[in-house]
């Protein structure tokens, strides 16, 4: 039964050392039983085709080996949802931490960082967050330690203020956009390597400087709010109101800037010719940002209103 022995060896290679010999012996006997019974049924001595037929019925060696073992996961279905959640939180926390550290370093040491270095640091942070969180959960899975989070959950702890699930892509876009703006606005992020002409020749008009702290506060608050909302995954009433207030404030500042005589200045005489075009481009960019901000306000308002009307219906039904 050379064919059977080869098959048993094939199966054995996928088995852990501890059970390999025992299962191999078990399998040898089981297959031999089947081969002999098949040959008996055909009223002849066991032949090669009997072995082939029986082995075909047993199936692929890997499949049989898996049947002999308890299912093992790197991260199993019990832990996977919470692993994914933890991973998202860790990545957001890592990126938020990066922005804060860059801002503090920039202010304290008059330090600047290039776009490429910022991106590289972000990717490194995301990689390390992935490695650390995954390692922790693999250890949890293999140690057999069960997280008690599921048991600790109680419906009484729900705030009842959840309004709707966030659109994660939208909020992440806002979160990243706000982080990049804060770094740029505070002169930490240097564009010089990518756009040397812009950095050297074009400066923002004085009207922007009047709103330095206004924009820092609006974008800083929005950055924190979006990090928090990404962490929670759902909008609450107070968070949506904050979102609307911040966007209205941004709309107001954007409106004032839009009305300014000039948005950028070109110190070099030879570039005066392009000044008008530059003002137009900047105004267009501002209009687009204002448009998106207004759209965000409308979405937040719509979500808030749908929740309020739903609550009214509930109260009506209760009465």
């Amino acid at each position: 039964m050379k064919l059977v022995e080869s098959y048993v060896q094939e199966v054995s290679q996928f088995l852990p050392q501890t059970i390999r010999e025992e299962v191999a012996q078990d399998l040898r006997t089981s297959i031999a039983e089947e081969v002999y019974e098949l040959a008996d049924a055909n009223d002849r001595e066991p032949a090669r085709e009997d072995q082939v037929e029986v082995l075909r019925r047993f199936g692929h060696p890997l499949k049989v080996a898996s049947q002999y073992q308890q299912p093992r996961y790197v991260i199993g279905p019990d832990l996977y949802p919470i692993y994914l959640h933890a991973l998202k939180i860790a990545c957001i926390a890592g990126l938020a931490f990066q922005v804060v550290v860059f801002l503090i370093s920039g202010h304290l040491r008059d330090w600047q960082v290039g776009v490429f270095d910022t991106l590289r640091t972000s990717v490194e942070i995301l990689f390390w967050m992935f490695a650390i969180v995954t390692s922790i959960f693999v250890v949890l899975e293999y140690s057999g330690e069960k997280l008690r989070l599921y048991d600790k959950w109680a419906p009484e702890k729900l705030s009842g203020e959840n309004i709707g699930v966030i659109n994660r892509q939208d909020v992440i876009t806002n979160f990243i956009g706000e982080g990049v703006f804060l770094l740029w606005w505070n002169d930490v992020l240097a564009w010089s390597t990518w756009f040397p002409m812009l950095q050297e020749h074009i400066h923002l008009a004085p009207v922007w400087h009047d709103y330095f702290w206004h924009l820092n506060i609006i974008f800083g608050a929005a950055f924190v709010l979006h990090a928090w909302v990404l962490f929670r995954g759902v909008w609450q009433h107070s968070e949506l109101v904050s979102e609307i207030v911040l966007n209205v404030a941004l709309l107001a500042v954007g409106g004032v800037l839009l009305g300014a005589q000039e948005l950028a200045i070109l110190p070099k005489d030879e570039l005066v010719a392009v000044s008008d075009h530059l003002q137009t481009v900047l105004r267009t960019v501002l209009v687009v940002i204002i448009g998106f901000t207004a759209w965000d306000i409308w979405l937040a308002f719509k979500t808030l209103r749908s929740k309020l009307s739903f609550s009214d219906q509930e109260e009506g039904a209760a009465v």
Partner: protein
Amino acid sequence: MEAETQDIYEKLVSEIRRGALVLAVLAQMRQEHYGYSLRKALADQGLDVEEGTLYPLIRRLETQGLLSSEWREEGKRKKRFYRLSDQGATVYAQLLNQWQALNKSMNLIVGPIQAHA
């Protein structure tokens, strides 16, 4: 779409069969069997089980202490005979109670739907 439905159906069937198969094997093991005779007994009663599923299951049940086994020679061939252990008999009785209760509930639940259909 047809293939997707078939996939879903096959997964659900395999889930239903997985638990039922353990009960069926334990029930058959009230009498002594060796691997092939068990598979044949199950097949004769309408439950076809792949060899690659049945033999690992027998081994798992034995490792758990629900089956006991001994090697004997029969018809000039050495075979491994299995039967329900004392622990296996206790677990089998408990499982059977669960199965009967579940079966009763399912008949009540599925019955009216069948009448509708």
